[in-house]
Each structure stands twice: as C-alpha cells, then as structure tokens.
C-alpha cells in the first residue's frame, strides 16, 4: 500500500474532527501518514492520530511553521512530497486548507481538487457544483494528486495504525516568511461547535424577523449540540453575525443534519448547504423552494414549531 499524507488541522493541541475523517478516508486508499505543522503535538494527540490509522506522524515542531500565513505549511508538505513520494496529499477543504493545497499544487507542479465530498479508487473525487445542481467526478492527471475534502464527507472510524513519530526539521524560506501573523484574536462564540465542522447545523433566515428572535434558533441548536447558521437575509439585516452566513458567498456546510427555519431556500443559500445528509425545514410558506430539498418539512409558524421541537428534544433526552 502506498503512503498518503494527511495534513492535520489542530487548534491549541486539539485535533479537529475533519482530520480523523481524512485518516479514515485515506485508509481506504493507502497508508495514512499524518503531518503535524507547528508545536503542540503531545502524547494525547499522537495517540489519537494512531487510533485513527496514522502509520507515521511527521511532526514539524516549530513556531516558524505557523507564524506566517499558509506558505510554510505548503513548503513543509512540498518537502515531504519530494522526500516520501506519497500517492496523494489530503487536506481539509476549509478556507485555509484550500490555500495550502493551492500553493502546494504550484510548488509540486501537481493537480489539485477542492471541495471533494467523497474520494474513491484512483483518487477520483466527488464534487457537488453550481449550488448542488450538478454532480461531478474528477481526478488529478498530473503530479501528486492533492485533494481538499470537505468536513463531514465521511464518518470517522477508529482503526489503529503504528503512529511512528518522525521529526521534520523545518526552516521556512524567506519568501514563506513574507506575511507574518502578529496576533491571533479569538472571538467569543461560546460552546457551540464550529459551523463548517458541526454534525448538526440549525439556521435561521428572514422569517426569524429580528436579532432577539435568534434566541429560539440558538436554543434549538443547543438542545442538539449543533452550530448556528444564518441565511444571507438574516446576516444582511444584522440579526446574526456575518461569519455565520451559510451560502454561496458565505460558509459551505455539509452536516449530517441541517435544520432551516424561516429560510426560503434561494440558490444563494442552497449552494452552501445542499450536500447536507438530512434536511429539515420549517417555513410558513408552502411554496418556499427549500421544501424541494427537505427530507422532512413543517409548513407552519416557526415561532410555534421551533420552541415545541426544542421542548420535545429536551423531553426525550
């Protein structure tokens, strides 16, 4: 079996779920090697990577790798591609993951596929494009396939790997140190999961009517341990912060369960959520296009239906 590099996404030493998904996926196609860029790869992290099948763990334990925008990570991966000749490189299809993939593709003169929602034999990637209207299967035809895979594309399954650590000495080039991160600012967003990673997302739209009313969307989200999203109508009206916008010009989510309340389902919104596995809709307009993609829909007043649903979920816990 051939080696597949998986770039680990981590925050404060914690591995993000998407990395476990990528390891799970990589196991079906070869032998995954995790690549840890930056400090913080402790014993618990290494154990977790091994638990999900990492045979090797390349650790570039240096602040230099993470103190500059994207470029040092691409250099690190390019070096590993040159040294190890992997069959493919997988990264998370997050905004930063895609940028790493892009620079790596230029450096290694290799093809890159972004926003994959599945990956099969021969590294043929499934993509859903044009707002979910067209399904595409693509493959890289030059160099080392670089594939950015969306979070929630597969369920993480544990299967132990050797987890052998190999330290990688890195010194980013001068060019890679051109854009320096001088401060990281964490914005408070409570205990909810990160929007693009969440297994469940509850979103509110125009029908929610005000910033205050978003409390009922948040309560439903919290009853399910879900992230909160918002349609463009809601973020444009400043009812909910812009970084939570799901849609064509906002975040793309692909959760197990997506609940849309008071959202009509314009293409603008559907482009950001149409690959969700199960979709529940609450809307008072039976003609709302969002019902076309609903697995379960309630035609009714969200101010009645959503609190009742929240109460019912709490009751059944």
């Amino acid at each position, binding site marked *: 079996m051939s080696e597949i590099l998986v770039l680990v996404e981590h*925050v404060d030493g914690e591995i993000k779920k998407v990395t476990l998904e990528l390891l799970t996926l990589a196991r079906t196609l070869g032998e995954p090697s995790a690549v840890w860029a930056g400090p913080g790869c402790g014993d618990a992290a290494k154990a977790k990577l091994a638990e999900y099948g990492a045979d090797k763990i390349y650790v570039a334990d240096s602040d230099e790798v993470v103190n500059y*925008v*994207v470029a040092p990570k*691409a250099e690190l991966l390019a070096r590993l591609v040159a040294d190890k000749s992997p069959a493919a490189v997988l990264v998370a299809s997050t*905004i930063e993951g*895609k*940028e790493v*993939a*892009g*620079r790596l*593709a*230029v450096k290694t003169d*290799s*093809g*890159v596929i*972004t926003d994959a929602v599945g990956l099969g034999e021969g590294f043929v990637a499934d993509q*859903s494009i044009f*707002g979910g*209207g*067209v*399904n*595409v*299967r*693509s*493959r*890289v*035809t030059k*160099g080392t396939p670089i594939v950015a895979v969306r979070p929630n594309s597969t369920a993480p399954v544990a299967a132990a790997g050797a987890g052998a650590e190999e330290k990688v000495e890195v010194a980013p080039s001068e060019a890679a140190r*051109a*854009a*320096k*991160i*001088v401060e*990281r*600012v964490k*914005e408070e967003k409570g205990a909810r999961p990160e929007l693009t990673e969440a297994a*469940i997302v509850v979103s509110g739209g125009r029908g929610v009517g005000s910033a205050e009313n978003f409390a009922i969307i948040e309560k439903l989200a919290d009853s399910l341990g879900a992230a909160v999203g918002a349609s463009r109508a809601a973020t444009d009206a400043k009812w909910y912060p*812009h*970084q939570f916008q799901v849609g*064509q*010009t906002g975040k793309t989510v692909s959760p*197990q*369960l997506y609940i849309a309340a008071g959202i009509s389902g314009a293409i*603008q919104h559907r482009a950001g959520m149409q690959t969700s596995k*199960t979709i*529940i809709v*609450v809307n008072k307009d039976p003609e709302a296009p969002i*019902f*076309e993609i*609903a*697995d*379960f829909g*309630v*035609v*009714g007043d969200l101010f*009645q*239906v959503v609190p*009742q*649903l929240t109460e019912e*979920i709490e009751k059944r816990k």
Partner: protein
Amino acid sequence: MNIVVCVKQVPDTATERKLRPDDKTLDRDAVDGVVNELDEYAVEEALRLKEAHGGEVTVLTMGPAKATETIRKALAMGADKAVHLSDDALHGSDALSTSYAMAQALKKIGFDLVILGSESTDARTGVLAAMLAERLGAPQLTLARKVEVNGSAIAIERITDYGYDKVEATLPAVVSVVEKINEPRYPSFKGIMAAKKKPVEALGIADASVDASAVGLAAAYSEVAEFAAAPPRAAGTIVKDEGDGGVKAADFLASKKFI
C-alpha cells in the same frame, strides 16, 4: 500606489448553470455573465486605497471577449484603466494554468498591490490568490476583512475559524478580500459615461509571455471524468402544522436516531 484588481466574469448565480457536454467546461455562452460578486468588494477596496493614498487602479480580467462587460462595470465604479487577457488558447484553463497566466500578466503590468475577491461563485475553489502569491513570490494577505496601508507597510485582518489573525507584510503584496469588508459603490451615471472612454488594453498570451502549451483545457492538471445533473432528492415528508408540528419533527429526528 499601483493597484491591480482582478475581476472575473461569472454566470449569474440566479440562472441555471451547466457544463458543456463536449469538453466538460462551464457553458459560458448559455448564461448571462455578471461580475463575480466578491470581486466588487475587491474593486471597492482598491478604490478606497487609491482615494486614501493616491495612485492608480488597473482592472485585470482573463476571459472571452464577452468579459468586456465586466471590465466596464469595474471602470464605471471608478477604476482608471483595464487590461483584458484574452486568447482562445486560454479556454478551459484550470486554477493552476489560470494562476500562471494571470501571474505572467501581472508581472507585465507591474503592481504594488494585487487585490482579488476571496473566491468566484462559479468554480468556488478559493485558491487563486494563494497561487498568485506563490507564483509572484509576494506576501499572501488573503481572506482580509480589513486592509491598512502605511507607506510600504501593509496590515490586514485575516478571518479564521476562531476569529481573525492580524497579519503584516511589506508591499508588493497579494490581497484577497471577503464579503462585507466594505459596501461596494454603485456606478454613477457619470461613472458609466466616463468608463466608455477609459483605456482597455487587449493582451494576448504572447504579449504576456504565456506559454500556450501551459494553458487551456489540454494543459489542465485535472479532468472531469464524468458529470450529471444531481438527482432530485427523494421527495420528503411535508406536514402542515396543526399544533403538533414540533412534535412531528421530533418524531422524525428520533426515527433517524438524531435524538
């Protein structure tokens, strides 16, 4: 300050977009072209930086003849001139060859600052700015929600999962902007009239020292193996709320083991 703002003509997202059956590229003839929405924020940011610091704003677009409409829109907003990189050989270029051709054009034009939208609404790869930074050897200041220039120093706020990073670099640099960094202005009547007289330089691939064998569909680094219209989702169950809509939704969640 010499600012080049890259804009792309994309199909209107409100229309049905299709791939061409013959070469599996986006069917651009079948749909109305509009300025990629996120690029309007890039144009606006370029104009604001020019207004604050002086200089000139050049629009660069790569695309077929039809993309001239997009150039006119950016000029009507207030950009000074435009360069239209256009050549039949470019048709079907993927992100890698697009970034190569654009980088060559940018080298020819010269720049202190390149500004782009963070992604296009058609391909949505979100990689072009990073690739340009790589190819140009310029600092990558992407996903900016705020841009500040002070002499040759530039600082941005780069959005992240947890909030944002403050990032600093020295010009020349490549910046991509996210939605809501500003409110793009509407072209005024005067602006629209003035745009008709502004220079648009046509650039072929030879003019930009672009190797024809490195661009276009034949040079693509990936291929679409197959594509199909997404099958409609199986019709779901739609109920009318009779006072128990929330309970029924909970029943559905339970049947799917979500609760």
